[in-house]
């Protein structure tokens, strides 16, 4: 990119708008963080207190010491990673099939994936519950992972197919003319170029699984409880434990943010016109 703009111009046209957008994205989150370090009395004060009268970490201590929150975070992590693994394992080959082949029933199959996802999850909950019980998958990691990946796969297939369509087929042809087998072509040519798409899809599956509530609530029990269900437990019948809830809410966003910080370089893994030509 010919960077002809002066630093001031860049500041005004890029950094200030981005700051505004990040501000919009973070404002409610920051409000939640502020609440989590306020003593209970501050939370119900009127007029509104913005800054805490004194900073306290008692909610975090209670959360981590007296509830199973850390264990729930771990469960969510296992489930989300599992959903990504199963989801990618199923959708990458499927996307390859849809992108690189033309076969009878292709349109129908692609549409059918989406149709299944258009069924509202909520209505499927009870039959799914009965099915999972029949398969003895209730209250197991595997059960929730399968549940989550089932809903992630159709979207993942579509997203990966469109990313893969962006990789010209000439590259495949060139590689195969050069003597590479189909699998080698996939491994050495397509996957590297698909990396931004794979990373995006993985993030999508991870985030969807991470903050999914309905399945986790229905299919899990005391043994495998995810963090979304654990947070719901703080909303009781007669009280809402704001301190614990906001502390938990603050913590729950952190793993995803760190994950994204790590993978965002792969997201933009230097796909340039040069690589395409090579």
């Amino acid at each position: 990119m010919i960077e002809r703009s002066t630093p001031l111009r860049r500041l005004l046209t890029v950094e200030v708008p981005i700051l505004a957008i990040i501000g919009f994205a973070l404002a409610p989150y920051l409000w939640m963080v502020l609440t989590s370090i306020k003593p209970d009395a501050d939370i119900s004060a009127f007029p509104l207190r913005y800054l805490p009268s004194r900073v306290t970490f008692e909610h975090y201590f209670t959360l981590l010491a007296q509830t199973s929150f850390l264990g729930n975070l771990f469960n969510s992590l296992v489930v989300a990673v599992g959903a990504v693994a199963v989801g990618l394992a199923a959708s990458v080959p499927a996307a390859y099939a849809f992108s690189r082949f033309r076969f009878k029933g292709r349109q129908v199959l692609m549409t059918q994936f989406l149709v299944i996802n258009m069924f509202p999850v909520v209505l499927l909950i009870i039959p799914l519950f009965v099915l999972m019980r029949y398969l003895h998958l209730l209250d197991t990691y595997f059960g929730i992972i399968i549940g989550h990946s089932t809903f992630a796969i159709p979207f993942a297939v579509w997203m990966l197919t469109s990313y893969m369509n962006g990789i010209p087929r000439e590259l495949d042809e060139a590689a195969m003319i050069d003597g590479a087998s189909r699998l080698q072509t996939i491994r050495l040519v397509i996957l590297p170029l698909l990396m931004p798409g794979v990373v995006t899809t993985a993030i999508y599956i991870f985030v969807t699984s991470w903050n999914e509530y309905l399945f986790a609530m229905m299919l899990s029990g005391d043994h495998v409880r995810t963090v979304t269900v654990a947070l719901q437990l703080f909303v009781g019948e007669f009280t809402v434990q704001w301190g614990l809830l906001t502390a938990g809410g603050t913590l729950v966003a952190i793993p995803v943010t760190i994950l994204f910080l790590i993978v965002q370089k792969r997201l933009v893994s230097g796909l340039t016109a040069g690589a395409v030509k090579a």
Partner: protein
Amino acid sequence: MNLPAAPTRRSLLPFAFLAPALAVEVAIICYPVLQTVWMSLHDFVLFRPNSVPFIAFGNFARAFMDPVFWLSLWNSVLWIVFIVLFQFLLGLGTALLLNRSFWWRGLARALVVIPWALPSVIIGLMWTWMYDYNLGVINDLLLRLHLIGAPIAWLARPDTTLPSIMLALVWQGFPFFAVTILAGLQTVSQEQLEAAEIDGANAFQRLRSVVLPAIAEVLATALLLRTIWVANSLDVILVMTGGGPGYASHTLPLYAFLKAYSSMEIGYGAALSLILTALLLFVVYAYVRRAARAEAAA
């Protein structure tokens, strides 16, 4: 790019690649989906499982005569159109900005996903609290800035409740577009951009003639997927207002949910959901046909 179609000699090979995805879907989803369709054709009340008469399209007829159904449908249309539109625009703008280089770009990219990373219960509770009449941050700030003279009961007034919840959804979902489009922007050819710039195109013209066409398919897919997701979403409304006041924030999936789980009329709830699915099917079908035609023309 005129390429001959891939050979269909090894016509079983694509199915081998499709097998894992199909297996999971068929094994897990088939039964619940068929059950839902079956339930919609019966008068199925959950606490009367022994008396389930077959009523064919009785539930659907009931829906068409139900004023709440039509109200929910209208709210759903508003819901989908405005949320997807604003999520898309904000996400597109964010992606374009995050694609430029500035020193804290990596951090910005990570921070922008935070709304998307929060569970619906947190989002619903936090935004409800922010919109609170007496104790909410939004009223407080607007009052301090003298933009309003008296607090507004955002979630209790039928005219403001749906837009208020929609703002929370736009906030929650725009990172999805930002991330997806950002990934797609990586495939935009640098050479084409530079060529356009040399030809004298300004930023907006470059956007229109080079960038957008290059990411068109990713955009269309993201829009399609998001539309489906937003159409079916109900957790946040449930937490924030439960559909109220009155029916002001009833959308079709929420109405179906309340009928199925609160009133326990699962048959009727299933029928309502299937109507929504059928309507979404039109959108999908139109997209798939258009994509097929574009492919055939390419």
